[in-house]
């Protein structure tokens, strides 16, 4: 079946199976920044933005995003580079597998909240797991990015 959506602002039309998940479709079309980690809606590595909101692309069917705006990390390169700097400075940047999903969630967090509390930040990023670190380095990096990266 055909599905059309805006991928990083460009209208694309792909041929997909009825039970094909968005992460698979994106990876099949060379968007390899979208990682499939746990493949059961837990780890957040497959996060993309759907109409600006973070969502797990391993768990939404490609046909469900008909007409929607999908953003992968390729679509926020400038902000992602900034976030990567803060991650590097705080030692949050290790194997890198979770980074693309993390960058998108942090980008969405910044758009959604003006001055999030620590609890709000934690609640927002809890669906993105990093298996290298204890996530405290991420929290420090995110706080600095939100404060200085305005």
């Amino acid at each position, binding site marked *: 079946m055909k599905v059309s959506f805006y991928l990083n602002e460009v209208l694309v039309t792909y041929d997909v199976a009825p*039970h094909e998940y968005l992460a698979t479709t994106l990876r099949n079309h060379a968007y390899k920044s979208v990682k499939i980690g746990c493949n059961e*809606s837990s780890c957040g590595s497959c996060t993309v933005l759907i109409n600006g909101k973070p969502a797990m692309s391993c768990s939404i*069917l490609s046909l*469900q995003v008909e007409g929607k705006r999908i953003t992968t990390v390729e679509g926020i390169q400038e902000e992602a580079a900034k976030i990567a700097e803060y991650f590097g400075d705080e030692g949050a940047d290790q194997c890198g597998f979770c980074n693309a999903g993390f960058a998108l969630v942090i980008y969405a967090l910044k758009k959604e909240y003006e001055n999030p509390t620590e609890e709000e930040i934690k*609640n927002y990023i*809890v*669906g*993105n797991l990093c298996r290298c670190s204890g996530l405290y380095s991420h929290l420090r990096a995110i706080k600095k990015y939100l404060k200085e990266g305005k």
Partner: protein
Amino acid sequence: MRAKEYYRASSLEDAYQKLQEDAKNVLLAGGLWIKKIGQSYNTLIDLSTLGLNQISENKDEIIVGAMVTERDFENHPAIRKLFNDSIAFAVREVMGVNFRNLATIGGSIMGRYPFSDVISGLLPYHVKLKFYPEQEMSLEEYLNYKGKLNAILTEIHIKKEEGRGYFKKVKTTALDFPTINFAISKINNEYKIVVGARPMVATIAKGASEYISNIKHPTEEDFIKTTELAVEELSFMDNKDASKEYRMDLTRVYIKRGLKEVNE
């Protein structure tokens, strides 16, 4: 998950007809549970274009479309205002934001999932479910309904009332299913005590709720007596997360704390 066809319903009637056509056709809300259990279907019936993703309110009720995402629900000012934010709080305890942007309130209710925080969070309040073809029942009636209901959930009506609420999910890690969960309401001196994930689906501890509702100025001893009544009347079981005894102990602790909190 496998599916042969994907069908975008053009109306509720259209979706309903498609559902009747084949026992292996299924309604698609957020799609997260379908993904998790990985079964095979003939047709996935997409309900996303039927305008069921709105929250509205009148002077008595908040009306939540069945396809409203958990995230939109928990962020809605009218929902947050209810019972000191305790319903929205229960929903915020479900997985991460990137999950709740997909999961729907209707899907969370219709599955009657034993681990549901959404159901436990809503059950102590006056919540009515509306279906297509036209049918109406309370959330409690739906949980007790025998067999599979052959209807499409369209709206969830939450009665606006003044009162206090409490919700607690006990979990081992931030992203975990609940080991057990608790919700308590106090509206005009009437209490409702709910315990879910015991590990069975949430239920109201009726005897305990009635006992405490009949006491004007409850003391610590009344709270303890209430928790004992709840432990006696509810059934608990072992599973891989916790033993029956541990769940009973947690019930003693958290119902007491919750009762104190709704009395503050």
